[in-house]
Each structure stands twice: as C-alpha cells, then as structure tokens.
C-alpha cells in the first residue's frame, strides 16, 4: 500500500507542476507588471486612476494587425477622457515587432515582453487577448481575438467603463 501511495504521490506531484496559472477573470485584480516600452518603462501601478485597455499582440498574429487601426482610433477618441491603451508585444525577437510597427503604426503606449512573463501571469489563452482594467486596478473585461464586427461591442465596453 505504501508503494502504491508513493507512486501516486510522485505522479500527482509531476502533474501538478505542469498545471497552468489560474485565469484572470473579470472582477479579479490585474497582476502588476513593469516592462520596457517605446516611451520608457510601462507599469500598471503608474496608470492607476486611468481606464487601461491592455492588449497582448505579436507581429505574426493576423487579427492583431486588424486591431491596431481600431486601437489608434479609440486612443484618439477616448484618451482625453481617461483611456490609456497599452499594447504588450510578445514577439521573441524585437526586430519582428519593429518591422510590424513600421507597417502598422501605433499611437498608443507600447511595452515589450519577449520573455512572456506577463501573458503567463495574465493566463492569456489566445492572440490577441485584451483586458479592460478599471481605474481601481480590477479587470472589467477579458476579450480574446479581434474581429471587425466586434469593434462596436468593445467600444461600448470602453464607453460604459468611462461613465
């Protein structure tokens, strides 16, 4: 019996170690991050009091490319009202991100996380993943993917949070 128990324990210990991080859902506090960015370091704590639209993207991701014009538009429209869009690039090579940005310019704050530590802690399940984080630092919305027809719905979430 002891042997069976030992084997079971060894197996479950191995399996537990492989479990992914718990999901970050609406209502949960957004994990803190501090990343190098296009205009200096970007940290969530420094953005407290603002509505943050956090977007995880990569140069190889098609829907990400589609989302950039929309994010630029939202930043221009709601920036003065307290919205800050932060695009976290997850490319392994910075050169890939720079090439993408030369083609698709971004007028919002950019951060770079080549190690993938931030998406791990945010339990990102698809690309792109965006999260709306309230001024109190709590997650309001988690959204995976980007389709043209979702523009309106996402904008409504932003306007509702700015009220």
């Amino acid at each position, binding site marked *: 019996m002891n*042997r069976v128990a*030992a*084997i079971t324990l*060894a*197996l479950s*210990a*191995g*399996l537990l*170690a*492989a479990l992914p991080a718990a999901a970050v859902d609406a209502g949960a506090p957004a994990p803190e991050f501090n990343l190098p960015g296009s205009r200096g370091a970007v940290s969530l704590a420094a953005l407290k009091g603002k509505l943050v639209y956090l977007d*995880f993207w*990569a*140069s*190889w*991701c*098609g*829907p990400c490319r589609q989302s950039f014009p929309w994010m630029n538009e939202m930043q221009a429209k709601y920036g003065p009202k307290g919205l800050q869009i932060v695009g976290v690039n*997850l*490319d*392994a090579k910075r050169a*890939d991100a720079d090439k993408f940005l030369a083609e698709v310019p971004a007028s919002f704050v950019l951060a770079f996380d080549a190690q*993938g530590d931030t*998406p*791990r802690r945010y339990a*990102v*399940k*698809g*690309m*792109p*993943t965006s999260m709306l984080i309230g001024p109190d630092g709590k997650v309001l919305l988690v959204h*995976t*993917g*980007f*389709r043209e027809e979702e523009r309106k719905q996402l904008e409504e979430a932003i306007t509702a949070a700015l009220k």
Partner: protein
Amino acid sequence: MTTDTAVHPTMNQRTFAALLLLCVSLAGCADFQAPRPWEKGLLAKKEMSLGGDALEQRFDQHILNSKEAAAGGSGVGGGGCGCN
C-alpha cells in the same frame, strides 16, 4: 525456503525501484506542454503550414469549408481565437 525469502524481497525492491523510476520519468513528460498562445511565432510562419502550395491549400480549405462547414485548424494565425 531460506534462499527464497532472502532473494524475494530484493527482487521486489528492484521491481519497485524500476516502477518508481518509470513513474517519475513519465510524470516528467507532463512538463512537455504545447507552446503557449504567444509562443507560436515560428509556427505561424508560412513554411510551417502543412502542404506547400498556397493555392492548393486554399482549395483544400474551400472544400473543407463547404463539405464540413468548418474552417481553420490548418495553421497558426490567431492562436486559437478562431479568427483569421
């Protein structure tokens, strides 16, 4: 009889040790997990897709789309969001 009891426990211990080693190494396999959504940059490259010819692939996709009412799954574009 005396040799039997002397040999048997050691045999059992060896079997047990082998079993334990097998289990521990098998559990190690659980650590080899699929690439995370943000780690699919290389997989998203055109040359990583199944089949070589772009036109042929589009044709295959079209057939799949019309016969199975299903799309995607033939490569990495969006990383599991179902778009692109």
